[in-house]
């Protein structure tokens, strides 16, 4: 749905780094290098980024539809 606040395994804060990560990867950068840059070292935290899908944006689309109907 939305990025988790912390890494499930170690508890490090990852939420604040997601949008920078997503933006840079979208521009074509290597995800591994971006994670190194952001200081995400442990593989537990790295998988949080690599496996996350920001689904909330898709749900918000339908919210727009309801607002416009009203």
């Amino acid at each position: 749905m939305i990025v988790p606040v912390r890494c499930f395994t170690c508890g490090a804060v990852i939420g604040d780094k997601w949008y920078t990560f997503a933006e840079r990867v979208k521009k074509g950068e290597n995800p591994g290098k971006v994670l190194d840059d952001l200081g995400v070292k442990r593989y537990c935290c790295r998988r949080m980024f690599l496996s996350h899908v920001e689904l909330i944006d898709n749900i918000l689309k339908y919210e727009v539809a309801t607002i416009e109907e009203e």
Partner: protein
Amino acid sequence: MINVDPSIKILKKEGEDIEFLLENVTPAFANSFRRALLSEVPILAIDEVVFLENTSVLFDEVIAHRLGMIPLKIDPKIYEVLKECYFEGKRDDCVMLFTLEVEAVDRPITVTSGQLKFQGSLSQFPVNIDFTIEPVSKNIPIVKLERGQKIVLEAYAKMGVGREHAKWQPVTSPGYKYMPIIEILKEECKNNECQRCVEVCPRNVLAITNGKITVTDLYQCSLCRACEEECPDIIRIKWDSSKFIFKISNLGVLPIEMILDTALEVLTVKSHSFVRELEKLISG
């Protein structure tokens, strides 16, 4: 048995990460120290949330959980008072209030931890100190709002320990390893026969200088023994089980020194009460 006093030597401190050497202790002590760091140091975290309005796509409880997971930076000067509150069992007397009120008017927005407003303590502290408590990072997303959606809430932060819930953990993943001892059995290396022993190391701990194998970065050794397996006649890996290399990454809630100090304090208090109970059993 170890008869020398334990000591701590800081090896490396980079930002929130710390590496230190704990000497003259037993493995049992090192582990109880690690566990105390994770689960016995009390800190603040949002524990109760009152929703006044929530028209976002996330349920109240999901948002409340996300709020709880946000680490709160505690002013070091107020920490002693808060700690006292927790240890004396009066955690409901030290409650911090935060409010959040955001509405997406003309465009969709992401509500972040920076928008949480600290409203002060709910109770009067015995000492008159001016302090603030704020999230460690201002950019943690809480929820996304589409136009016309609104969220209004009150959040109450309480003291607690990691034993109860992971949101009260002051550090992430404290880990330790034994102090490695790398013995080079054969001094001279002829015809590059040692090259393979050095290259097999995944952490580049070894190097060849002037035809001899040398240890360049002992603390990096993970005791994987790949070099020993490759060259059993040249290298032997041992470890010192009274010395531990600790690696801790801090969340930024408190200075790491204060966390280490509190963990040791909790361990001391617990051991003392254990001894007292034992004495009661013997005498009674």
